């Protein structure tokens, strides 16, 4: 392991590519996925394929099931039926195998969720040391490179509560990257941030996207979607209502539901 890269090799030739299959084969495949919360049918027969190196933005009204979709991909939320495959492997049940799969799927939360009793550096090295069994020195070296990359290397020895929201979220991204995941999930990574901090986080995400990381991003940031994503998935009431390219979706949505939603987020 000599490369300090954070994911698959750069596989896209052109970030503006409009084709459906940018670079690699399918990496995350959901087939006929269903999930209920009691009576509520939050995921209704979801079919979705995310290819290697692809960036998919998931957008839609509150309560539509976006977070649940994201969380089900690394089984933080179990599903009722259907299959979810990550890199050709079906999601295992609870246990060691599942922990291993989760290590391959990075997750960034809306509320950062950094380990409050550990320094930023310890946050980033915990997974590599305990899960990937890396030596402390190597883990710290990698962690410092990642913190450098997200622009907070000088905060490494501080505790999460001492950092601004934007810095915490960038640390959380570094923590997820440290596991060298095959795919990264972002659940509204900027919605808990003050406006002036949104950009610094989106910049990091955009650069990740351009480096070829496979990403599933729940966000309402249209600028990011246009800049970095190949695909927009519009979700409402537990269903995928529309799936298209960012340009097409934002300028020429096909469904009434999507048009209605867009008119609401565009007017305020």
């Amino acid at each position, binding site marked *: 392991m000599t490369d300090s890269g954070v994911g698959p090799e750069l596989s896209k030739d052109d970030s503006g590519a409009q084709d459906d299959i940018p670079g690699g084969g399918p990496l995350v495949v959901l087939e006929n996925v269903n999930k209920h919360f009691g009576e509520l049918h939050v995921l209704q027969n979801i079919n979705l394929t995310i290819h290697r190196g692809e960036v998919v933005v998931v957008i839609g009204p509150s309560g539509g099931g976006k977070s649940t979709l994201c969380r089900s991909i690394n089984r933080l939320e179990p599903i009722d039926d259907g299959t979810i495959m990550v890199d050709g492997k079906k999601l295992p049940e609870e*246990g*060691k195998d599942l*922990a291993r799969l*989760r290590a391959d799927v990075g997750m960034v939360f809306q509320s950062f969720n950094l380990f409050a009793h550990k320094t930023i550096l310890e946050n980033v090295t*915990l997974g590599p040391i305990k*899960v990937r069994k890396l030596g402390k020195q190597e883990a710290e070296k990698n962690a410092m490179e990642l913190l450098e990359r997200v622009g907070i290397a000088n905060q490494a020895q501080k*505790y999460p509560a001492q950092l601004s929201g934007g810095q915490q979220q960038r640390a959380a991204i570094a*923590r997820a990257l440290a596991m060298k995941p095959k795919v990264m999930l972002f659940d509204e990574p900027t919605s808990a941030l003050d406006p002036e901090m949104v950009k610094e986080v989106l910049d990091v995400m955009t650069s990740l996207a351009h480096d070829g990381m496979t990403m599933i991003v729940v966000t309402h940031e249209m600028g990011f979607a246009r800049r970095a994503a190949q695909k927009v998935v519009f979700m409402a009431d537990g269903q995928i209502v529309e799936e298209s390219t960012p340009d097409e979706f934002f300028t020429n949505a096909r469904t009434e539901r999507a048009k209605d939603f867009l008119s609401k987020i565009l007017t305020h």
Partner: protein
Amino acid sequence: MDVLFDFTPVFDNMGDILQAFWAVIRLTVTTGILSLILGTILAGMRVAPVRIFRGAGTLYVNVFRNTPLTLILAFCALGLSDTLHISLSTQSTVNFYWLAVFGLAAYTAAFICEALRSGINTVPLGQAEAARAVGLTFFQSLRLVILPQAFRSVIAPLGSIFIAMTKNTTVVIVASYVESAYIMRQLFEEEGATIPMFLAFAIGFMIITLPMGFFFGWLAKRLAVSR
């Protein structure tokens, strides 16, 4: 009146008294460590994803928290030792000592478990989710992320539990012969129950428990997790 306020018996028996408190300290440390380990395991069981573990943990806590300590110790001494002939040492005083330690630890662990569980509840759910998302197993998440934060938030109540435990070592007289309360009773019988003698023992306990209280208060402040 003179006898009542005569401090000479205290000084005459200083050796015995110190020996008694040395026994209290030993009992406190041993029992403290044992109950902390057992209490932590129980707390882990009570939040485990497996129902049987949760049930067993709950049953344990409810049984031990609601049974008087004297009964538990009497059970250890009479039931385990005399009737079932469970023996930890050939020497009967040593045997009684360990049975008493286990009895008191088993009892205290139930309270430690509950304090810790309330501490676990103060740790935001997102911490456990982030730990799982990084790929830690349930056990690793508990040990590396949840418990360290839970402990820090319940240091003060844990301190109270340990202080109560220290004083409960006196109850161990039911099962053991090496402890300060036993010597206290002996001295009372031989020297008469004088106020100085009571004072000596009361102060002796405070010398142990007051610093414990200050220590736990200091520790709680020092280790508080800021969010």
